[in-house]
């Protein structure tokens, strides 16, 4: 009976739940789905992390390569993110070149890296003007159930924490780089940006961590990226219904709490793999 009503009038079905201040999967409006993270499972990558936000699963693999620093800033390296939403994660995606959503997500992650200064590009330089690291961050969504941006940001943070770069010295005489694979150093992670996404219903109600169904029914979305000192790194609101300043302030408050939860989780995971 309920299933029939849900198919015919999905929005009405949802409104009935929202009136009681809860959602069909039993969560409250401000509650996140169970978050699990697994670090370092892919040994061929220099750093890797698998993040599950409820059913949404994203795996991030980071590979480091050498490159010449850019001409305008010879003391910087590169970080290149790429988000892939393959047809295996959901039937809404077709095989072929990256669609709109994948490209928008890639650009969002690039902006987060740039704005939050999670890694200073100067740290990636090995020899000024000659050699620097380029970190390719590849995200593959394995199961799409909404809220890709949060999952990708979290996976990025976890994977970067897991990266071990070998020490590189430039031989004075030959000018060639010598790589020592046994001496590895972790990256210097300066800031810890955490993203929190909200979906807007009927221009008034805000729900946190939307599933794919909720995203389809929503009239707008907002993503807020915070870092640890309660500083706002970025606010991403791609069109959709308007929000008052008060509502935006509520979102920011929720994002601060979420940051604490995520930080605790990451620290717990890092500690559990420490014995090396």
């Amino acid at each position, binding site marked *: 009976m309920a299933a029939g009503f849900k198919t015919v009038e999905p929005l009405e079905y949802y409104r009935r739940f929202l009136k009681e201040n809860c959602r069909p999967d039993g969560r409250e409006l401000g509650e996140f789905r169970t978050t699990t993270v697994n670090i370092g499972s*892919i*040994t*061929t*990558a220099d750093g*890797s992390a698998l993040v599950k936000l409820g*059913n949404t*699963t994203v*795996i991030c*693999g*980071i*590979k480091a*390569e050498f490159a010449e620093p850019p001409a305008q800033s010879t003391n910087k390296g590169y970080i290149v993110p*790429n988000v*892939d939403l*393959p*047809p*295996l*994660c*959901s*039937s809404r995606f*077709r*095989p072929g070149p990256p669609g709109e959503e994948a490209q928008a997500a890639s650009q969002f992650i690039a902006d987060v890296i740039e704005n939050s200064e999670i890694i200073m590009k100067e740290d990636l330089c090995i020899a000024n003007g000659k050699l620097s690291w380029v970190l*390719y961050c*590849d995200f*593959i969504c*394995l*199961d*799409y*159930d909404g809220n890709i941006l949060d999952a990708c940001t979290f996976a990025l943070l976890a994977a970067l924490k897991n990266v071990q770069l070998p020490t590189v010295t430039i031989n004075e005489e030959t000018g060639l780089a010598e790589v020592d694979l046994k001496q590895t150093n972790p990256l210097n992670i300066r800031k810890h940006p955490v993203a929190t996404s909200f979906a807007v219903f009927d221009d008034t109600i805000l729900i946190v961590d939307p599933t*794919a169904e909720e995203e389809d029914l929503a009239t707008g979305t907002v993503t807020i990226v915070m870092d640890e000192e309660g500083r706002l790194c970025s606010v991403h609101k791609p069109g959709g219904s308007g929000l008052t300043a008060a509502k935006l302030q509520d979102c920011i408050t929720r994002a601060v709490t979420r940051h604490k939860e995520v930080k605790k989780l990451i620290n717990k995971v890092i500690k559990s793999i420490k014995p090396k």
Partner: protein
Amino acid sequence: MAGLELLSDEGYRVDGRRAGELRKVRARMGVFAQADGSAYLEQGNTKALAVVYGPHEMRGSRSKALHDRALVNCQYSMATFSTGERKRRPHGDRKSSEMTLHLKQTFEAAILTQLYPRSQIDIYVQILQADGGNYCACVNAATLATIDAGIPMRDYVCACSAGFIEDTPLADLNYVEEAAGGPQVALALLPKSDQIALLEMNSRLHEDHLEQVMEAASKACKDMYAVLDQVVRDHVHEVTTLLGE
């Protein structure tokens, strides 16, 4: 090749296995919520994920629909971080397209496509970490995913690779053994009826040795069948216990 002994005098390979021994296989079915059927399989260090959608209506060009059977659509893709060197093109390059075609042909032989005319079955395989035996891990993972999706098949499809070093056939080659350049055979078998779905061999092998290598590959496939069968039974047992049957 210089310095690396693929088969020691005592009969041990580089990773400590015996000539006819398979790598450790770990598999889970039903890992993803969105897909109709999914499976994750690890064969040693090779990690493969298979996802099946279908049978469903034809997407894209209706003209490609077959009037009497289902169309099997595969895609083989390797993650850019799956190999030692970063892979620039995850799919669409020649090797991936060839693998895709082989997967499609293998599964068309095994799935009872006549039961679903004018529909489409999608099989997507993703390699997360490549350490030799990529095709074989994909076929095994895809078999589990197809079973998880409830699509009727003639038989399991079990695949394994085999090589030949110093007059000894080796089963289930890893990346080091594949890169050494000796003859390699990839075999996809329907174990109960002993029918070969796909057989691929490269490099050169004397015809006198062919039978030995084929037998080693066949035996390895049957061992794989035992493992996969156990995985399926355990999964069904777990699911029915949860349902309270």
